[in-house]
């Protein structure tokens, strides 16, 4: 198993590719501990408590700080958008996701250095750890993603779809298909089918799926054109009691 390098890390939020601006990102997941020590104990006893998950990022702006500011506002200000962090943007890669609207971000303008960005996020109900279904490569036509095995049984999942770039087409419909065994035909999951997304649109959908899933992205309109869409899927798990 090969370790990954930071240079392959990708950060998407609210339909925007924040990898253009950020150069460092760190997650911070914590579980509080509750002291349950009693007289008969010889050492401190602890039980897990509440989960608190957060993340932070550092970056720089390009030649147009005002555009970066507009993107940050759009990406991190929408209540429905989710920040997705992937160590490498390829199907099967497992990442980290939390609500983008709880971000606090800042830009600073030093006299002798580039304009820089800092952002901090806090999760409300705990971070998710989604698996990449479709990488955000530039495509010119419809695509079926690779099969991803979620494990035996059925799974309650959250799909996070983001259309990062679009040209020539009028939109892109993103959906998930599933099947119980590798011998079955693929079946659309209606609840995990987006409307035709416009550039920088995003959608977060939930449903119950079978063991095997794959993403399908279909551009709308006559084209020719190009698009880049990121689809990740997270298994919904309750915090342990």
């Amino acid at each position, binding site marked *: *198993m*090969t*370790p*990954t*390098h*930071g*240079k392959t*890390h990708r950060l998407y939020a609210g339909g925007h590719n924040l990898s253009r601006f950020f*150069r*460092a*990102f*760190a*997650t*911070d*997941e*914590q*579980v*509080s*501990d509750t002291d349950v*020590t009693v007289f008969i*104990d*010889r*050492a*401190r*006893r*602890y*039980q*897990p408590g509440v*989960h608190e998950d957060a993340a932070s990022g550092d970056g720089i702006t390009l030649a147009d700080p005002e555009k970066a500011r507009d993107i940050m506002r759009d990406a991190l200000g929408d209540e429905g958008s989710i920040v997705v*962090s992937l*160590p490498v943007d390829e199907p099967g*890669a*497992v990442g*980290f996701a939390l609500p983008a609207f709880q971000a606090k971000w800042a830009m600073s303008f030093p006299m002798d250095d580039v304009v820089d960005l800092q952002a901090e996020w806090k999760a409300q109900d705990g971070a998710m*750890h989604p698996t990449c279904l479709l990488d955000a490569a530039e495509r010119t036509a419809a695509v079926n993603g690779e099969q991803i095995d979620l494990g035996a049984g059925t799974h309650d999942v959250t799909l996070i779809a983001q259309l990062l770039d679009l040209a020539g087409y009028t939109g892109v419909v993103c959906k998930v298909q599933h099947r119980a065994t590798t011998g079955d035909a693929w079946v659309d999951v209606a609840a995990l089918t987006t409307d035709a997304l416009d550039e920088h649109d995003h959608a977060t959908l939930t449903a119950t799926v079978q063991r095997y899933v794959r993403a399908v992205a279909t551009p709308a309109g006559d084209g020719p054109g190009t698009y880049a869409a990121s689809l990740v899927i997270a298994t919904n798990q309750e*915090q*342990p009691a």
Partner: protein
Amino acid sequence: MTTALHGKDTIVTLDGVDITSLVNTTGVESTVEDGDVTTFADKARRFIPGLEDNGEIPLEGPFKVALHTQLVALKGVAGKVLRITAGGGGIGMPYVEATGFINKLSASFDVGDPNGISSSFKVDGELEHGVVEE
């Protein structure tokens, strides 16, 4: 003559899974709390031993999916066993075993560095010290 043990031969298992190939940093720090019993008659501080507190055991390594997946699944789940064995784990090699839970998990991504994972295992109760017998 006793031979010193090198850290590179450390074996680490978490919840029964060998994670030796996934981590490169760990360690144990055990503390006995002290109770200050100094009175007016004393010329120097007086202490008596209190509870043992075995703190948090760090588990760090390069970012690999297998380690990340396991730590995510164990985060906040009580009653897990972490065992650190020195010297390659042969018969007679010392080990430390702790029961507790993963209470911190961080991943770091920097454009100029390999990705990394940092986590800590909160120890619940006493540590078990022993030697490998079979």
